[in-house]
């Protein structure tokens, strides 16, 4: 099913999508990957204020290539989500509602998706040039010293993603492979 969805994603919106749905996202989301997640967790442990508004936020696991003059961003495809597995359950429990990445997640993350009425989307890995065309604006809002790993706030329009894990407990990676497996 093809669905157009405005960001932010709320629990009600997350409830409406199912593993296998094609969703086109429009609105604002954060961009953060390994090093930024590590810093966010350190702030959470120290009970300090985060540089992002975590309630109902969507985080895209991505580190772009540099933008050419006059363009908002460079190549901008997803990075492997499993490296954020250590941090994701805590962030989901604090209010993060959607993650955009690629690849398998741990059971702890999938459980946190169900528990918090959240969703895990996959963007097409290795399609960074194509995906960059759906990004209208990009600004660094924290950790500029991290270069490609800085936290960004981006504005997207019809950004294509596929629901991999939904809050009903479905996991597309597990079911899709079985369908085409020849033993």
């Amino acid at each position, binding site marked *: 099913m093809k669905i157009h969805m405005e960001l932010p994603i709320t629990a009600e919106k997350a409830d409406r999508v199912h593993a296998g749905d094609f969703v086109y996202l429009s609105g604002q989301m954060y961009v953060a990957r390994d090093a930024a997640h590590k810093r966010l967790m350190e702030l959470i442990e120290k009970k300090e204020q985060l540089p992002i508004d975590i309630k109902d936020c969507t985080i895209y696991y991505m580190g772009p290539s540099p933008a050419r003059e006059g363009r908002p961003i*460079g190549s901008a495809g997803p990075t492997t989500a499993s490296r954020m597995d250590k941090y994701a359950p805590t962030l989901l429990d604090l209010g993060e509602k959607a993650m955009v990445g*690629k690849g*398998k997640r741990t059971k702890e993350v999938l459980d946190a998706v169900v528990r918090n009425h959240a969703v895990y989307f996959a963007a097409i890995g290795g399609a960074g040039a194509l995906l960059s065309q759906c990004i209208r604006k990009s600004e660094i809002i924290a950790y500029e010293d991290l270069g490609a790993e800085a936290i960004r706030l981006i504005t997207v329009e019809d950004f294509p993603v596929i629901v991999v894990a939904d809050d009903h407990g479905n996991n597309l990676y597990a079911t899709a492979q079985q*369908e*085409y497996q020849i033993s």
Partner: protein
Amino acid sequence: MIFRLSVYDYMIREIDTSLITKNIREMCISVNYELSDDMKKVLSDAHEKEESPLGKQILGELQRNLDIAKIDQIPICQDTGMAVVFLEIGQDVHFTGGSLEDAINEGVRQGYTDGYLRKSVVGDPIERVNTGDNTPAIIHEKIVPGDKVKIKVAPKGFGSENMSKVYMLKPAQGIEGVKDAILQTVNDAGPNACPPMVIGVGIGGDFEKSAEMAKEALTREVGVHSDKKWVADLESEMLEKINNLGIGPAGLGGRITALAVNVNTYPTHIAGLPVAVNICCHVNRHIIREI
């Protein structure tokens, strides 16, 4: 004192290292904007063949992605990789103008800066501060007969690199052990390695030789098989077995999980059977120049 020049001295070819810098710079940029013809063809064929509707759609998007990258001069993938450089240096070549290693890294620095490529290298694996210019490169050098220098540049993304493995098998495990190792590695990689993948395999040598062979196997033209019959047969058989796993494009199910399996071999020790499996995503970048 009289110095005598031998015939050999006249055969030495001098190459200024600035020529290496210039070539590496250009190669880093172009290889990140456009795939080689063999990769373009195999991806286009995969799009034709894929049976899963979602898989076919994804392969179509990957075709569009390649077109956009080329037209807009933007990297195909934001992970523009760690720069892996293979050099085959003719033994009759004499480099002038400074350190060869510095010249290679200067080429990488210029290419990644001028080409708007991502700087993905940290200077220390634990302290993890970005070097800011994607240096240093991973450099493999081989001395060969002749007076030419062959340069291969193959930037490697780490989504797929992280799913690669080295196995130290027992000789008794034989070819079946090798097949199991390859299949297990690819199945574990699944969606994380951005399928459809290219699989580089090194069999034999020692611990690091197997890994280096696997990496270099990725730079072999897709569709060209090994000269050794048993190796060529293994490549075809493993491609079929991998595609039967059903992982499919982007790991979302389908017939096309891998585009090629390239295997390199080397003599090994009586006690060992090393097998390295280096996985590459569909953005299998390699470019070769000879100077």
